[in-house]
């Protein structure tokens, strides 16, 4: 099983990555570190696990989808 990591909007452009598949990690923060090679967390960056808002220290399980994105600007 793998974990899918997604980046959106300005963060996607900044990181140059939209999706990445990684092996097991313990938290969303670990997934960030693995994909970004320990890049600093941009201010206000948001985290979602399986389509629900979460935190960098929220646990991640195999098969989960972890997403990182900037503050939302819809509507």
């Amino acid at each position, binding site marked *: 099983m793998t974990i899918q990591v997604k980046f959106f*909007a300005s963060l996607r452009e900044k990181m140059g990555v939209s999706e990445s598949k990684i092996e097991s990690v313990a938290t969303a923060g670990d997934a960030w570190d693995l994909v970004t090679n320990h890049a600093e967390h941009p201010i206000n960056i948001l985290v979602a696990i399986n389509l629900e808002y979460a935190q960098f220290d929220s646990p991640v399980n195999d098969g989960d989808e972890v997403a990182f994105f*900037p503050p939302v600007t*819809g509507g």
Partner: protein
Amino acid sequence: MSIHISEQPFDPWVEITQHQKQSALEKQFGATATFIGSMRDFNDGAKVSSMVLEHYPEMTQRYLEKLEQQAHQKWDLLDSLIIHRVGDISLADPIVLIACWSAHRRAALDACNWLIEELKHNAPFWKKESRQDGERWVENNTDGT
């Protein structure tokens, strides 16, 4: 209750008319409150010519469905409709439509107001504007002023 994410332009008044026609509740509607957010030609003092609206499709759908359900739990609504554009947006295009129907006015008005605020603060959409000085991600649009 209905959620629609649209890649095509939509006419909010036509959508509302069609939604009402399909509804069996029409004679119970005492109140309808709506909000439409459209693309303006100015933002933060700069002229904007077009816009791309990115979103996180699976999360958007799920988030808006939960939001609509919450509104129906908090207020005595007879029906509601949420439409949000994504993709390439032209000047004056409607971006979001919220419509709430209820027997009495406070439920529709308060639910409509709550839904647009919650959507603006939490729904995973992002705007990238094309301006005279180039493209720019909108950084914040949540304070309503």
